[in-house]
């Protein structure tokens, strides 16, 4: 079972005023549930775990845009630091894909993969899929099935967040940053209709804001 930091359902998070939050979002958020610094520290550890397991062979890191980009950038930085500072290091290449399956905050069943190099580039490599959040698990399961056909050497999934929800298919990624409650979370590149990607902490979206930024 992947180790993860659990944020419990009754965790009230921190008062907004105790952290630096962009002024234009002050009315839209209820609380800071995961400060940026905690995300960074947890990511640093995940990088070490990943290199420990996958460091034996060329790693292709596949970033799922757009939500995954900040976690991806920070994770890559920590992996590169480990590569630079140890006696053995492993080549790391990157690629980016988009999965379209969201509108407002309801997860639909339709998943479309857009962009990325030829998937044949993944044959025989250690593939690390980097995602921001896993909820139902259906998006990830669909992607894994697709990648399986390219015959990679190994495929692992690292997700910053896994939601604790009855809608989950039961799928668990190989590397998990935090397990979070079934609330609508924004910040650190998690969006609500493209807003809040410029917030560095992960926060709980207020009901008022859901209406305000509705599509």
């Amino acid at each position, binding site marked *: 079972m992947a180790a993860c930091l659990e944020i419990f359902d009754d965790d009230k998070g921190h*008062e907004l005023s105790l952290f630096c939050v962009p002024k234009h979002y002050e009315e839209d958020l209820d609380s800071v549930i995961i400060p940026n610094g*905690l995300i960074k520290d947890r990511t640093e550890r995940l990088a070490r775990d990943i290199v420990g397991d996958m460091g034996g062979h060329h790693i292709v890191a596949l970033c799922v845009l757009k939500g995954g980009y900040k976690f991806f950038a920070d994770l890559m930085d920590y992996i590169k630091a480990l590569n630079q500072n140890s006696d053995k290091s492993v080549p790391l290449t990157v690629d980016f894909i988009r999965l379209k399956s969201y509108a407002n905050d309801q997860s639909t069943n339709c998943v479309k993969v857009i962009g990325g190099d030829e998937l044949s580039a993944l044959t025989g490599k250690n593939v690390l899929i980097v995602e921001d959040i896993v909820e139902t698990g259906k998006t990830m399961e669909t992607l894994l099935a697709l990648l399986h056909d390219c015959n990679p050497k190994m495929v692992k999934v690292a997700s910053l967040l896994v939601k604790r929800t009855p809608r989950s298919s039961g799928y668990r990624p190989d590397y998990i940053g935090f397990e979070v409650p079934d609330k609508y979370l924004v910040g650190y590149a998690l969006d609500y209709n493209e807003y809040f990607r410029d917030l560095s902490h992960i926060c709980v979206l207020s009901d008022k804001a859901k209406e305000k930024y509705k599509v």
Partner: protein
Amino acid sequence: MDGRLDGTERKQKSVVIQEGWPGYNLELFNYPEHYHGDIENVYIPHGVIMDRIESIARDILEDLGQHTLMVLCVLKGGYKFCADLVDSIKAQSRSTNCPLTVRVEFIRLKSYLNDRSTEDLHITGPDDLSVLRGKNVLIVEAIVGTGKTMMSLLKHVVTFQPKTIKVAGLLVKQGPNGAAMLPDYVGFVIPNHFVVGYALDYNEYFRDLDHICVISEKGKLKYKV
């Protein structure tokens, strides 16, 4: 004590860590291998300390950003908090219309043996702190326990006739042995555990640990004087 320029109270002064909070499992974070077994948990991760400092720096800038700020850093435990706090104050001040001049002075206080606070307080540092006269002074301390040390230090600083004196404490201990009065700026209010890391030591050990952690019984014995 609050010092907000428009007279309104700050909504909440500090992150409060409740008695009974177990901290985070060590396996979820990176920490130096040489402390394996010597610490119980990660109590406050380094990243959260940095985020909280950013917010405190913003508050300090709001209150004291108009005139040259004299920072009085209490060594050795205060050195990391001071360095990171001053960095953050300067970074945030750079983006305002009037960048702030910050000067730092250092003093040393010796009052702990093993994990017990002793009665004597030795203050060493610049003999001539007359640079503080007429200035806004910010005392930067890593941890306020009983508050006795802080009261002694304040009495000492007042003799140099500064304009104002404010205190920033990264950690303040709560509980029956805790400080009666909160510093002006507080990072975290914590229960009465002996914590190490982020420049806080146990007989000079653990200053090289980034996170704030609770020391284990094994650690206390291993590094006992």
